[in-house]
């Protein structure tokens, strides 16, 4: 089904697609695999220039003041070419820290692409796994905990860490959960790199008595921080799926066996149609959630991530199958789509995790 977009939204979509194609498309992504920084900072800076990192930052604070529909459109295009830059994470971080006076320098750096700040959120537990504590008046807030699979961890400038009050700590009521900024070189923070199939650098973080540089008490802007990240991952997965389907359809039209294009065989036709229907259902889900506004509910965000993660894995596995032998080779791009789908599915919690979170929230 066609999308229902305003003229402005179509312009945005086209300009994003054009910029990413000019930057090098999937070929660029392939070339950047395995590099320590994991992405191209020149391209990252251009993205900042285009305003992508300020998409959901209010206009009064230097952003574009747009909504999740626009963020989703950008991330779908990014997903289509497997852009390695952490666009969604950066845009959501920028929104979360836009309000704090104490963070204005960091915010400006992130918005303008000069700094890279990654969200440090657990994808394997029901809430933050990092705890905060105020041991004494002088010490200020201290953080402890372990986090798994944080993107770009080895090369970014710092982390936006979600933390909850330690069981025996101070209670701030509604602010028991807070966001904190921890620069990469903070004492007590250990970064253990981990290779993933996606080819970009990730790491596990261990925080022992870490003093964050900035503490953000909860306000409405970070209320949905976690959940907008889930939305961003889902939107990017739509892009991954839809490009995987397009590439596969093209292959089915071209590749001949038994004297005709393999796309004329009904079994493959029906398989790719099922995949297409899966993709459309996730895409519609993304747009309808986006239409609800930025104050996204946790149950809806988890439902969306669970659906996107499960369907994207199935669609990309199916795309490999339809490519046959060539799909099993490293040199065929379709494998990169499966690997990105694997990573995006696991990041921030996989389908099983978010189905459980959704189920608990609905109970």
């Amino acid at each position, binding site marked *: *089904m066609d999308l229902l977009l305003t003229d402005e939204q179509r312009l945005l979509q086209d300009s994003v697609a054009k910029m990413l194609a000019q930057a090098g498309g999937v070929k660029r992504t392939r070339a950047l695999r395995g590099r320590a920084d994991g992405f191209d900072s020149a391209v990252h800076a251009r993205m900042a220039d285009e305003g992508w990192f300020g998409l959901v930052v209010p206009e009064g604070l230097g952003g574009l003041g747009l909504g999740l529909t626009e963020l989703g459109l950008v991330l779908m295009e990014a997903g289509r070419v497997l852009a390695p830059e952490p666009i969604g994470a950066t845009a959501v971080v920028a929104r979360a820290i836009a309000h704090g006076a104490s963070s204005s320098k960091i915010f400006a750096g992130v918005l303008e692409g000069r700094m890279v700040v990654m969200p440090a959120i657990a994808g394997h537990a029901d809430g933050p796994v990092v705890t905060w504590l105020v041991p004494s008046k002088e010490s200020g807030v201290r953080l402890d905990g372990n986090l798994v699979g944080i993107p770009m961890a080895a090369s970014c400038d710092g982390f936006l860490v979600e933390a909850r009050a330690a069981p025996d700590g101070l209670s701030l009521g509604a602010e028991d959960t807070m966001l904190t900024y921890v620069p990469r070189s903070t004492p007590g923070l250990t970064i253990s790199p981990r290779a993933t199939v996606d080819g970009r650098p990730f790491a596990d973080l261990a925080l022992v008595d870490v003093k964050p540089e900035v503490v953000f008490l909860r306000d409405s802007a970070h209320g949905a921080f976690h959940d907008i990240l889930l939305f961003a991952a889902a939107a990017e997965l739509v892009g991954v799926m839809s490009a995987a389907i397009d590439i596969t359809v093209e292959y*089915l039209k071209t590749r001949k066996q038994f004297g005709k294009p393999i*796309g*004329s065989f009904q079994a493959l036709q029906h398989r790719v149609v099922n995949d297409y*229907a899966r993709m459309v259902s996730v895409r519609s889900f993304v747009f309808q959630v986006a239409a609800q506004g930025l104050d996204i509910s946790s149950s809806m965000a988890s439902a969306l991530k669970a*659906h996107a993660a499960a369907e994207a894995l199935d669609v990309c596995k199916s795309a490999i199958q339809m490519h046959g032998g060539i799909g099993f080779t490293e040199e065929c791009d379709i494998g990169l789509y499966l690997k990105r789908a694997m990573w995006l599915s696991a990041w921030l919690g996989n389908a099983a995790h978010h*189905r*459980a979170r959704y189920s608990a929230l*609905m109970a």
Partner: protein
Amino acid sequence: MFRKDSPADADFRAEAREWLETNLPHTLRGMTARPHPPEIMPWYKALSKRGWIAPHWPKEYGGMGATLAQQIIISDELARLSAPHLPVQGINHLGPILMRYGTPGQKAQHLSRIISGEVIWAQGYSEPGAGSDLASLTTRADDKGDHFVVNGQKIWQTWGHYADWMFMLVRTDANATPKHAGISFMLVDLKTPGIKARPIMNIADDDEFAQMFLDDVVVPKGNLVGPLNGGWKVANDLLAHERLGTSSPQHTMEVLARIDRVSKANGKAADPIFRDKLAALRIKVTAQAAMFWHAVDMIATGQPLGPSSSTMKLVATDNLQAATDLLIEVAGANGADSERLTTDGEPTDVTQIFLQSRRATIYGGSSEIQRNVLAKRVLGLPG
């Protein structure tokens, strides 16, 4: 899900809810099998008198001229009370066709009698030998100057044995290539001599269908709708629009409500494995609702759904059947009972709706046909 009523719509919903709660007889609520027309037509006529039988029809034809939002509110509120299915071939199918293709005389003769419930219509498309391959239909109408003479058989007429009139596709050119270019759309009064109806019981023991035998049936030329040999377009033009109704998540949500009642009654509601399956299903239905509202927005802004509506039907019918699977699973040792199970509030039928849901992937173009259509017309695959 996803939509909140505007203040005006909220008022309309309150009005509709109150009126339906007062006026829908309790004996007609919560049924799985469709009650027979004699039982149901008084309710049809009551809705008609209230002006709500054809929300989507323009006012000039006796409809409500409702907005899409209002139409959905009415169908929501009917579903909330598990209101029975009505004979809708006239309202949903023939009416819109006559508005677009009918002559002034045809409109005058038929539209008001659809609204009033005076005439029940049957749809005469499929034939014993022409199901998925509808274009190969062979019921033929021979031109006899001022009338046609029709011979053949039609099948799957919903309540055909209770219907008064039938609209049908017939072959008027035996040599046309492609075959669908020799098909016309016409109306027949079922009291015409030469017509016999045989009821067909479905798998859930419900005699909802009929097979119609047409033997030298005289049909006046004036009953032709649209051009001679132009019936294919007449019948198919509004199909995508109609699929919207069958793809509404409401159908599956009704099954989810049953799952809820049964699981609470037998304690399964506390089983984490069951709860995970239910969550998986709810997530899929939420995605389906998103597709549905997207399609509603498309129609509301005047854009054609086109063959993409097939995508929605595939997802909707898969979800419906996944829900009835879970329903008989959660019923456990009672998963084959044909009687309703005792649940809080009202007894809940599980197997009949499971069996009825088999239809979803067969009728209105089987899932296989929908996939063929999507492969060719949306994905552009060859062959």
